[in-house]
């Protein structure tokens, strides 16, 4: 069984037990929306999956290989990329350098250049600003750059942490559209963590709802959207 399989994952921040027995699975090529309110543990989940944080127990497998306990830099080489929250670009570097960063671990520079070209196709605004310093970009452009950098590493599994945070609704729409486009084009598996539950579930195949560190519901996104109880609790209407 390939894809992402998370089984009874427990994570603590010191004495605080942040994630309890989290279990869910995502088939290859699917987009899973992980939603829940602030402090629910969504970011912790992604950071544990990408190796930035250690789990206390449980397992997470991608493509039938255990992910936990592996360093982030090694997971990247396995095709797992994490775009952490907060428009994670390096402001002191140029746009181009940020993109090159995505492929820096690869020895084949031609491949990296190809990927960069593909990303620029997806996000033309970046192409216009290649030699500009990343701190001159707007919020939306930075998010595109962050995602673009992750894409340059040609991942099979993409972990996105709240890409819509702090962005205008129009920009959010754009970004979500683009996410959908590239994931179908490139056959990516995506785990999308979002507070913006509605937009996330609309493009997702499955949804996982987390509250206070527990999975409270999961299933087909379309079903979750239409469940009245969930709508009241998490979607607000």
């Amino acid at each position, binding site marked *: 069984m390939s894809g992402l399989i998370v089984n009874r994952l427990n994570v603590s921040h010191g004495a605080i037990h942040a994630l309890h027995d989290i279990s869910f699975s995502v088939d290859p090529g699917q987009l899973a929306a992980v939603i829940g309110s602030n402090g629910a543990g969504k970011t912790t989940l992604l950071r544990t999956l990408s190796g930035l944080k250690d789990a206390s127990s449980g397992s997470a497998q991608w493509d039938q290989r255990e992910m936990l306990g592996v360093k*982030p830099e090694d997971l*990247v*080489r396995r095709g797992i*990329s994490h775009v*952490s929250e907060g428009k994670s670009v390096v402001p002191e*570097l140029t746009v181009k350098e940020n993109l090159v960063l995505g492929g*820096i671990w690869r020895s084949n520079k031609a491949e990296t250049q190809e990927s960069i070209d593909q990303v620029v196709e997806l996000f033309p605004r970046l192409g216009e600003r290649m030699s500009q310093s990343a701190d001159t970009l707007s919020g939306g452009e930075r998010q595109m750059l962050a995602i673009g950098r992750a894409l340059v590493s040609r991942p099979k599994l993409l972990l996105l942490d709240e890409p819509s945070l702090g962005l205008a609704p129009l920009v959010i729409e754009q970004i979500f559209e683009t996410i959908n486009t590239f994931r179908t084009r490139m056959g990516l598996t995506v785990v999308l963590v979002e507070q913006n539950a509605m937009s996330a579930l609309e493009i997702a195949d499955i949804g996982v709802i987390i509250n206070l560190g527990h999975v409270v519901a999961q299933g087909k996104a379309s079903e979750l959207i239409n469940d009245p109880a969930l709508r009241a609790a998490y979607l607000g209407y």
Partner: protein
Amino acid sequence: MQKVIETLLIGLTTGSIYALMSLAIVLVWRSTRVINFAQAGQAMFATYIGFEISSRSGVFWLGLLFAVVGGALLGAGVDYFFMRVLFKHANTGPAAVVAPVIATLGLLGLIRSVVGLTWGGEFRTIEAPASTDGYTIGSTTIPFSPLNALVIITVSLILIALAILFQRTNLGLALRASAYAPEIAKLAGIRTARTRTIGWAIAGGVGGVAGMLVSSNNFLSPYSLDLLLVFGFIAAVVGGLESMVGAVVGALVLGIGLTFILNYVGTSLVFIGGFTVLILVLLIKPDGIMAKGKGRRA
């Protein structure tokens, strides 16, 4: 007028040596968030190695080469064996703030003692690779010698090489990314620990060159590089610890300024001058003269 130009030239020479030291300090600071006081010790050790080779072979440049390699190996070693252990153990309690500082100071003392035990405290001299007689222009001799010119040229070459490394190579990009944003670098697949060690190695090698240049035709002793460390540190602070260009600019400014004090006021105030500059910068513009106004985080 002539004195001004002379002072400027000498100041440039002094400043360029400080630039190497301050660059090394900033390099390490950016990549590890630690001011490595032991860098003076590393440079000293590297210089003694250079001294051995150059006095046995009679070739300064061979000694310099060994000093660079020695300094680089020592720098990498310190990061790998010392700093990693330190961060693993001392990260709680009131000491967490204090530990890295004290530890690198301890390391400085350790290296100094080892050097002293091995070579003794007598002053050594390293033969300069160029004449120290001032250039004669027409009928006047200025205090600027071929050696000074050589120092400026060497440092400039090194700075150019480093600039190319950092701006145009993937290694340089990795070094910068690991220093500016270590977490993002990790997520981009950069092996940040390894990269950091390389940064330390580069800093160590650069320190070795600084030590060799400062000691050529000067005295070398287990204490002779302390002043270099102090002025290198001051230069780094003046330039704002966050930028490598700033480190160089700060060093040149400091070198020229101190030489003016030396020539126009007298030796007594050189050190006090330097110290005053440090205090002034820290009080007035703590981010350094090159900073864009970001906060200073220790």
